[in-house]
């Protein structure tokens, strides 16, 4: 389907420079904020004007852009883009009663600002698109990239996803019951028996194409579902798993988006049951909950496949030891948007 050749990640953990995943950085006030690098390579004047989402996205993409002579398309998934700028502009509208406003925040606020900024900075005139389908924004971007790679063999695509914690979306999702009311550390996330999760953010970027040579990982398949019907979801999962793994085969790892929300545990348990006997790892204690965490899971999977080392804090159930040749990622966002992806050694 699609080969991943390069991968970068800015997240609440030490995932960018000098990657170190064994020790866990802790959440503060139910938020896992990104551990941002110094952003070498972005001119200071431009950097100052960037909102956090654009900054993380561009920052994560720069090493890939530097290492790749020609990028033939920029494909970004983000549920909200630069929401901080968006609400800043909104606040101006209300506070100044539709008076004379400055357009800076308005222009920065559109979710396509990340892909647009990447195009602008690198004078890249090729395919440029932003998918914003909430909890599946990264998955639909990945499907896009897979189609592009198939339609245009030999071409390289920058695929990525970004979402930020802004005080505004934190407030909105908190009021809507998606962040925990009591303080919970990411270290104790899975022990929590209450509804809701903790907030997170980050940017992951990938160089993808149709060429297996020298690839880090192969995206073998992806399935997206919109449903709250547990039985239907289980049937769809079974069909998908069976279509990719013959009866005598199973993936080496199931990496799930379990997020400490007691209401959603049933979905994760159901997938674990379908793949009983498979090692189960979890990732949201590292990145927190946000709409495009599956891009973080995808980055982690590339890393696991390459390094063959699993940080101990990720383990939920270890039945078998290494090597890791194939990983199934399951995530669901707010119990409605589900995705399964299969990554393997190329």
């Amino acid at each position, binding site marked *: 389907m699609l080969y991943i050749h390069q991968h970068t990640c800015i997240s609440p953990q030490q995932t960018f420079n000098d990657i170190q995943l064994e020790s866990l950085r802790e959440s503060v006030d139910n938020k896992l904020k990104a551990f941002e690098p110094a952003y070498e390579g972005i001119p200071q004047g431009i950097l100052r004007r960037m909102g956090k989402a654009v900054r993380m996205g561009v920052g994560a993409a720069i090493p890939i852009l530097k290492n790749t002579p020609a990028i033939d398309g920029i494909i970004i998934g983000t549920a909200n883009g630069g929401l901080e700028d968006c609400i800043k502009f909104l606040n101006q*509208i*209300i506070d100044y009663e539709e008076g004379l406003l400055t357009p800076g925040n308005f222009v920065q606020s559109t979710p396509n600002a990340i*892909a647009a900024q990447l195009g602008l900075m690198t004078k890249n005139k090729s395919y440029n698109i932003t998918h914003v389908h909430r909890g599946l924004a990264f998955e639909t971007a990945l499907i896009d990239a897979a189609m592009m790679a198939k339609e245009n063999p030999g071409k390289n695509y920058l695929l990525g996803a970004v979402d930020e914690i802004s005080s505004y979306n934190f407030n909105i999702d908190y009021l809507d019951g998606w962040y925990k009311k009591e303080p919970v550390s990411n270290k104790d996330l899975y022990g929590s028996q209450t509804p809701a999760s903790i907030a997170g953010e980050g940017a992951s970027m990938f160089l993808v194409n149709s060429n297996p040579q020298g690839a880090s990982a192969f995206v073998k398949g992806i399935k997206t579902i919109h449903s709250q019907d547990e039985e239907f979801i289980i049937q769809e999962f079974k069909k998908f798993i069976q279509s990719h793994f013959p009866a005598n085969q199973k993936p080496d790892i199931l990496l799930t988006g379990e997020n400490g929300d007691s209401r959603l545990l049933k979905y994760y348990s159901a997938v674990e049951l379908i793949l009983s006997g498979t090692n189960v790892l979890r990732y949201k204690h590292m990145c927190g909950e946000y709409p495009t965490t599956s891009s973080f899971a995808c980055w982690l999977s590339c890393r696991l496949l390459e390094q063959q080392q699993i940080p101990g804090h990720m383990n939920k159930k270890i039945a078998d030891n290494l090597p890791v040749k194939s990983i199934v990622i399951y995530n669901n966002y707010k119990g409605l948007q589900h995705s399964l992806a299969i990554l393997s050694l190329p």
Partner: protein
Amino acid sequence: MGIITAIGNSVPENRDALINGRSGISDLSLFPSKYAGVLPCAEIKISTELLKEKLNAYERGVTRTSLLSLQALKEAVVDAGLSPEELSKDSTALIGASTVGGMCLTDELYHDANKSDNGSEYLSSYDCGSVSIYLQSKLKIGGIINTINTACSSSANAVMYGARLIKNGLADKAIVGGADSLAKFTINGFKSLHILSDEKCRPFDKDRKGLNLGEGAAFLVLEKEEDIAGRKVYAEVTGYGNSNDAYHPSSISDEGEGPYLSMKAALEIAGINQDEISFINAHGTATENNDETESRAMIRLFRTPPPFVSTKSYTGHTLGAAGAVEAVFSVLSLYHQEIYPALQFAHPIESTGLKPCLSYAPSSLKHIMSNSFGFGGNCSSLIFSKL
């Protein structure tokens, strides 16, 4: 196909307004804004409450953008004769597009984003994805669901994505389109950029003063060629191109590089020469920057451009819906073999001399190009062809 805009609540109503040169641009009467009576807009004169009633859509947190979408989607589904069983198949995709989403509720969003007491009923309705998610749950659509936001070219990219899903075997049917409703957010945003006109917009006129915002929704049902026997078919999607202008966050380069490249890419996918394009539904927002750069790009590619019109003189600029709205108009032109007149045009831009079509005319049309360009340099072109 299904559509709702300021010129009509259905495909036949929109066509009738186009044939008769009836613009939907007027003073705001339903939408509460300081600019009512000052900045004309293409407002759909049906209140949100009435839309709920008409559509029997009383779910909590449903926004105007979702309601307009549902109206257009239902018309498209009936027109294409899609049964609930067909909709629920995992080979039926829904690709929507929006730039405003639920942010049309500017005051509610202000409250929910800034205050920590009780939230409104719209907490999960503000994002762009909320629209497709609502439509999926309402019509139980079973395949790939997506939402695209590339600013003003959003729904042109939704058409492109849907066509590519079919081409790649990831869907047999793709319902593609987009929606946006008027919002304080966009009115004030475009106002701050000084590109809103205080009179009815005049696309491609040398004295144009900017754009009028509009609202609307449109959906088209795409099906793969193997399945169309015995079904009503309006046109074929033959070409699409997406390029970035890579010049400026909110304006297009002087020579219209992005528009030129997206038009050229669409011709390549369609496998036709530029002189085979019979007509262009131009982006034509009536801003100083767009119409001049788009004209230059057309001249660069076509030398003598084919007949063209910007239908934004009817519907205003419907932002994320524009690509789909204009796709429906392009397909209507092809199916009925007719060209709709440009409105409010008097004098061509001096440096280009291009004049849009000024009267309704039955025409022999084979391939129609539809252009959509957006902030962030996001340029897309589609080509529809007569069967």
